[in-house]
């Protein structure tokens, strides 16, 4: 043993309330990190739940953003080369929106004259509830359950909205002769049991027989057309009580969007151009967006549930570790720890575990997004805020999970805890 003299405290006065160092944040962090890492198996178990939950959330949100990024790219090119002109609407006395102008019959001639307009088509939805069948019998059971919508069209539809037709599209001649011809959207054709237009099959819209000249396989700008029956506008006005066109679809030269959207309303109504609005068409992605949205919600819910389970996991493991570490708690109290310091330590341990789960989870989520994007040929869209936010969320889950165990740890009576060893 050393021969140095032991130096007892001078026998004066108790120590003042605050003197010298005190339990610092650094002490707290060091002790918590030590506590967490003391048992790696315990650490792994308590991290996994949060990791999976955060990972699922980051993956869902990241993939959603990435997919939205691809849609936005497409939307940009659509917006650059397509316009839709529609009558402006105002809400009427009945609370519904009514158009404040109507598209004139010679609208196509007027807009195609504008510089920058490459193709134009006029469209009208036929609100007349027609029965549509492929056979001329009055057998209600043979009709499609929900008849496909009828869209009346004039002008160069294919050029204006893009798309592919097998067979052919009806043309100006059909329109001028007011022929009963139809082009079926692929979806509508399937619903009516028609496979192709090669044999010029007929369909019956009410009692009128229409010759099917083509099938619209796809449309970039108006995906809704694929499920519709398309007929010439003049024919629809004569036979199906169609009104004037309600939409002009334009394909325009790149860079002409702003001039055309300014000039088209003037061309249609020189005295009241405010009666029309011109805008980029809504993308078909919205239709798919709903489906995507449902899927996102499912993953999001799975992520949330896993996260809650992860939180419960942390709480559970922390509770277990508290009963294992009772004597440590007793020792710390004997060494002068207050109840609050004990609580703070277990809260911090839980926070560390949660943050760790959040961090690794975010990394796993990001990795998944990158891998999926590469496989799909997408450009991954990764939001730094998402990564930071999910790490913080992990920490919050940890904090929440740590509350109850921390209170339990603080309540441990040191005298009891030191007795059992």
């Amino acid at each position, binding site marked *: 043993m050393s021969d*140095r003299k032991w130096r007892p405290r001078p026998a004066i006065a108790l120590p003042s309330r605050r003197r010298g160092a005190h339990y610092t944040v650094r002490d707290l962090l060091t002790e918590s990190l030590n506590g967490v890492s003391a048992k790696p198996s315990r650490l792994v178990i308590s991290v996994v739940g949060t990791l999976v939950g955060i990972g699922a959330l980051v993956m869902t949100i990241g993939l959603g953003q990435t997919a939205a990024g691809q849609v936005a790219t497409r939307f940009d090119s659509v917006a650059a080369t397509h316009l839709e002109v529609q009558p402006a609407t105002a809400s009427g006395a009945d609370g519904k929106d009514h158009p404040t102008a109507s598209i004139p019959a010679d609208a196509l001639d007027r807009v195609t004259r504008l510089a920058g307009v490459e193709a134009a088509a006029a469209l009208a939805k036929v609100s007349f509830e027609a029965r549509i069948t492929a056979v001329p019998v009055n057998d209600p059971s043979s009709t499609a359950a929900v008849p496909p919508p009828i869209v009346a069209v004039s002008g160069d539809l294919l050029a204006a909205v893009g798309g592919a037709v097998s067979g052919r599209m009806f043309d100006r001649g059909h329109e001028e002769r007011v022929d009963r011809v139809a082009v079926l959207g692929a979806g509508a054709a399937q619903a009516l049991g028609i496979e192709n237009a090669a044999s010029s099959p007929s369909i019956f819209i009410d009692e009128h027989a229409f010759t099917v000249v083509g099938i619209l396989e796809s449309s970039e700008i108006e995906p809704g057309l694929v499920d519709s029956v398309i007929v010439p506008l003049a024919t629809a006005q004569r036979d199906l009580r169609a009104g004037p066109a309600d939409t002009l679809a334009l394909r325009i030269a790149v860079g002409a969007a702003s001039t055309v959207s300014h000039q088209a309303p003037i061309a249609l109504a020189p005295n009241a151009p405010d009666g029309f609005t011109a805008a980029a068409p809504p993308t078909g992605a919205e239709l798919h967006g709903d489906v995507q949205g449902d899927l996102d919600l499912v993953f999001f819910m799975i992520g949330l549930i896993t996260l809650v389970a992860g939180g419960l996991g942390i709480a559970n493991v922390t509770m277990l570790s508290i009963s294992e570490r009772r004597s*440590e708690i007793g020792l710390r109290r004997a*060494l002068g720890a207050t109840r609050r310091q004990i609580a703070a330590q277990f809260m911090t341990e839980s926070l560390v575990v949660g943050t760790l789960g959040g961090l690794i989870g975010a990394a796993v989520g990001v990795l998944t997004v990158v891998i999926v994007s590469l496989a799909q040929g997408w450009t991954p869209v990764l939001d730094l805020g998402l990564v930071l936010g999910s790490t913080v969320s992990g920490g919050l889950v940890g904090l929440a999970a740590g509350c109850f165990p921390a209170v339990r740890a603080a309540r441990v009576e040191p005298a009891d805890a030191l007795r059992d060893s």
Partner: protein
Amino acid sequence: MSEPLQPLLDLRQVTRSFGGAGAVTALAGIELSVASGDHVAITGPSGAGKSTMLNILGLLDRPSTGEYLFDGEPTSRLSERRRSTLRATQIGFVFQAFHLLPGRTVLENVSMAYLYGTVPRYERGRRARDALDRVGLSHRIGFQPGTLSGGERQRVAIARAVCTEPRLLLADEPTGNLDRANSEEILALFDELNADGLTLVTITHDQRVADRARRRVRIEQGRLTEPTA
């Protein structure tokens, strides 16, 4: 033989009962003064209330009735926070079960004693090493407690208890888990610490341990009987 020193510890009619309506009376009116610098051994049969009394002396527990004065100050009026500070700075504990944290080195275990006290961080390492040097374990600084012998572990625990330079050392069966040679080392250490002015209260079953103290106190069924030395 004891010279008239100012009492560091003063128990006045202290009782402690557990479990509501007087279920167990662990201490039934203890009257005890311990002078600063004294070394008191407490003996008595199992369940007599020795540990209960030590917990009260160490401010880990409060009397049910009566008053405990630490250095002349009535402790019943102290806040929890103040009691914690006193434990951190004035009182050291040594337990039969050592209570060393596994997974931390000997040095880290000793340094823990500074966590809740007032010794500044930059002094902790040096002081902890000094304390380990003092108990003869300089060469075990980086070891894990699990690799040490029982006697070495208890010496680490003693280093932890005294490295903050407390005025009071409370030991509950410090040699209870040790063989005779190791016990002897611990007792020598205690003698040395006491000679330097540290006040010691030791609970023991072992008559040889009791004989090394300046003063012996016996508890039976929560009451003191003080045989003359």
